[in-house]
């Protein structure tokens, strides 16, 4: 993370940056690859830049300085269903991101006191210790700790999970399938991306996007949304489990291994 001075009130994310390795799309020329990366970045950005997803603890000093969060995603290989993977990757990457703790400091210049004093001056030369008239607004900060310590980013639960419904028929009884391979993707003209966020305060449909040629009936939306929510919830729970396992492996088991040594 880097800190940046922000004059206005919004703190938080820079737009996510997506790069595709040419190995992921070997049939595309480099300009087409750039275009595709840009398209995917736009979708990511539109879904994830909503203020409700902004982490709340990125401020260093209110209205002056805040941390800026950069999210970089790289597609190494694409074998279908890349959007689900992108949003899963974004969520996983932010899961254990930590914000460094800071401490506000204010430099006070040595005051010019004319004449000698026979009274001992305090170290910073600020004169009387009872200086309650001015309340210093700290404009600078320093890092209170190094390396991996810090507070976890306050977005854990809210970050959404994406599920792509590949629509076979979107008439009254919508039929769809999940997790398409490249051949299946090529055969289906219409796809619906649904982003759900599951937090203790409730489920929320974060974002929705219809991609491709075709149209769907409004009446079938309810069923699609319900189905999508169920699938997304299962995906969310599976991901949580996996991340907790990984967390366990990194911290507790690693500690146990170290202790054994």
């Amino acid at each position: 993370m880097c800190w940046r001075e922000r004059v206005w009130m919004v703190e938080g994310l820079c737009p996510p940056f997506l790069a595709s390795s040419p190995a992921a799309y070997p049939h595309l020329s480099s300009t087409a690859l750039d275009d595709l990366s840009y398209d995917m970045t736009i979708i990511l950005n539109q879904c994830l830049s909503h203020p409700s997803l902004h982490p709340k603890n990125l401020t260093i000093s209110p209205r002056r300085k805040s941390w800026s969060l950069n999210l970089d995603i790289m597609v190494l290989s694409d074998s279908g269903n890349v959007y689900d993977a992108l949003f899963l990757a974004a969520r996983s990457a932010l899961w254990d991101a930590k914000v460094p703790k800071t401490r506000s400091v204010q430099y006070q210049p040595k005051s010019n006191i004319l004449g000698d004093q026979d009274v001992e001056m305090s170290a910073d030369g600020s004169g009387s210790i009872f200086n309650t008239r001015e309340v210093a607004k700290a404009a600078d900060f320093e890092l209170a700790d190094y390396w991996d310590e810090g507070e976890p980013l306050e977005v854990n639960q809210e970050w959404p999970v994406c599920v792509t419904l590949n629509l076979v028929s979107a008439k009254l009884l919508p039929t769809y399938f999940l997790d398409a391979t490249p051949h299946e993707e090529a055969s289906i003209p219409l796809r619906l991306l649904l982003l759900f966020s599951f937090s203790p305060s409730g489920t929320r449909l974060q974002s929705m996007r219809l991609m491709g040629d075709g149209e769907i009936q409004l009446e079938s939306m309810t069923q699609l949304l319900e189905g999508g929510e169920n699938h997304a919830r299962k995906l969310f729970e599976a991901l949580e489990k996996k991340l907790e396992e990984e967390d366990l492996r990194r911290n507790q088991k690693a500690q146990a291994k170290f202790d054994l040594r």
Partner: protein
Amino acid sequence: MASRVEILNDGGFRSDGRKQYELRDIVIDLSQQGSADGSVVLSHGLTQVSASVFGPREAKMRSQTLHDRANINIEVTFAPFSMGERRKRSRNDKRVLDFASTIKATFEPAIQTKLYPRSQIDIYINVLQQDGGVLQACINATTLALAAAGIPLLDFVCAVTGGVQSASPLLDLTTLEENDVPHLTVAVMPRTGNITLLTMETRLHVDRFEEIFQLVTSAGHVLHKEMKAAIKDRTRTLVAAMSVAPKAVGEKDPLYSERMDDS
């Protein structure tokens, strides 16, 4: 106040605990990635690089084909998160293009391009983590990916970096060491001992050159053993999957043992 990190302390240990001539841990993963003909993820310590090979196949741009041999096309991408500070490098950045053409020049003598006229061999390299020895890792990964893709090579190309810290030679440098110490990278073809790449971008005293050059070349031979073992392992698995298992204990499949002969 952090004390200055010693590159090589009095006990003969480096900043990461290695001895002078010790190479970093090598991890070679030859599993399939996407639809590549050959792919590998290679790590030298914390430097991690992935290479994918497609080809020989029809060229995307006819203008780039050569009438008597295959065209080698190398594209290198540096992940923005690969270094300590985030840096987005565009694909047409001069340094990146220079890097790619260095690797291409290294492999021109090694790949048997005359066997595939008017076609193209695409090699895509992704640098995932950088901790020194990136060129070395890219070259080694490319060799492995080419071998995994079944493209005929005259020989492996094995690269190692080496540097000299006040008269003491060091092998396989990390970022910390590369920033401090004059260093060079050598790529050697082990069977003949021919060098296909020798680069140095820092200043080194000419008296120190011969020693470090010899050392790095012999380190290349050591690396060759590791890389060969990894390829053989993978081939063994593939051949076992393809051929019928021997009927009885002691009865050997002649094709199997012929293929696995050391040559």
